[in-house]
């Protein structure tokens, strides 16, 4: 099954990967281990999951204003997710990707989706992010 969701590109770019879905917001600083890519906020359901190379689908950022620095460092060291899909624009995460683009010409695509589309994405769906904010979703038949 394949379908296309139309989102708003917050930071434009192309990427693909399998979805890592969190229902809860996350502070990247204090929530992401910069050496392993693991979610380390022990209060979250997805604590222990590794974001590296995945398309990280979570409603929004929260908490620390250092999250932009954490995101930029993770992009530089290749620990970052392949892309981020949010429900709400988080200026702090957008900033981390934009500064990375300015400094290293290496941006991490961020797309914001409408509620219905956002919640239609399931864990391990294969997502392809396009520069115009389109998100192509394909689901393995076995996963239904």
């Amino acid at each position, binding site marked *: 099954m394949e379908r296309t969701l139309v989102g708003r590109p*917050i*930071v434009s770019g192309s990427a693909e990967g399998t979805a890592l879905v969190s229902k809860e*917001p996350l*502070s990247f*600083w*204090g*929530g992401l*281990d*910069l050496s392993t890519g693991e979610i*380390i*906020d*022990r*209060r979250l359901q997805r*604590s222990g999951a590794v974001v590296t190379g995945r398309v990280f689908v979570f409603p*929004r*950022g*929260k*908490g*620390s*204003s*250092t*999250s*932009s*620095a*954490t995101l*930029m*460092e993770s992009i*530089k*060291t290749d620990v970052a997710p392949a892309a981020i899909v949010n429900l*709400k*624009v988080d*200026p*702090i*995460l*957008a*900033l*981390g990707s*934009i*500064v*990375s683009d*300015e*400094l*290293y010409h290496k941006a991490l695509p961020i797309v914001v989706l409408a509620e219905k589309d956002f919640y239609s994405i399931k864990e391990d769906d294969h997502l392809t992010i396009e520069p115009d904010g389109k998100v192509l979703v394909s689901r393995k038949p076995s996963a239904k």
Partner: protein
Amino acid sequence: MSVKLSIRDEQLLDGQHGEAARMAMRILVRMAEVQSAPEMMDVSQAHIDGCGLLSETGLEFAETLAVKGAKVCIPTTLNMGPLDLQNWRRFGVNEDFAAKAIRQAKAYTDMECIPTWTCAPYQSYLTPRFGQQIAWGESNAICYANSVLGARTNRYGDFIDICAAITGRVPRCGLHLKENRKAQILLRLIDIAPAIMRNNAFFATLGHLVGSQAEDKIPVIEGLPVDASSDQLKALCAAAASSGEVALFHAIGLTPEANTLEEAFQGGKPEQVIDIRLSDLQKSRADLSTAKEADMLDLVVLGCPHFSFDEFRELARLIRAQTEKGKMLHPNVKVIVISCQTSYALLQRSDFLDVLTDFGVEITLDTCVFHTPMVAPDTKVIMTNSGKCAYYAPGELGVQVAFGSMAECIASAVKGHIYRKETLV
């Protein structure tokens, strides 16, 4: 480009004010597009959070700007940094880390930032005034500036803060505009005894709850004591901005944009009303701890956000109460207080600095346990009176954490294990 720019904005983008200002302005304009801001606006003060975390990229960013000759054009204070600049050797920080931290600090002071090195800038120097348009980083300080002072800032993340300071410009949107500052949800404190609300742990506990309840909405709290102190509100802000993303809350009769409910809602109605009862506070308090009662304690951390002079005095009073009974700090427990140079300058003029140091309190300045490698790797259980520290410690430091009042922290430090007897909240 859809963002309307002034002549000076265009000149900044063209590089007429230097290469660093060009880069800063490019980032600001891209952020204006992200935030759908129609134009840019002036800010008259900045607080930099980007100087806190030591990372290769953060250091490179700061040095890139500094080498290009960037200078801030508005008064700009600095958040805590990655190093106690005077005493780092005492805390076992390695030379390589320190050398890079010193380079990062120098990049920011070379840009003419004021070396306040504190995460409680509102208690330190250049406190913003009501209605002042500012660009502040540091989640607890953003919340305090907006809520308690009535200054206006968005949640500025690391690196846009210095861009704003270099150019004096930010995207015109969000909490800079009065219409976006109106309360959206009402949190009512129901049947909470005044004695509970005098306990400092109440404010961190409430903050933790407010952060998780408010989600991305602006809350107004009804029923808070109108004489709440700066330190109590600091604790509330820090906790609410950690469990959630609270950049602004109102409190009826207490914060400057909420003399009445009507004023807080700017004539509108709450989208949601949530009642907070003692049982909710008890649950919130329990949620702040991962360690259990009677667990062996390794470290007490106080001063998140940075300790004020009043908090030092309160700590000295609590320690005196123990030492007068012949009690001492347990040999297996360390007590670290994090603070800033301005509080410490006052402390040095007090008659109780010796009370603290004789007991074994270690005071570190300019930095924080999360950003400088000073917590011993074998530390397993810590205790703190900070909702923010309790929120982040399990993940960031890999420890179990117990939340308690300052009195409970000191009582536990004497006993050598987690000991909380204030059962109310």
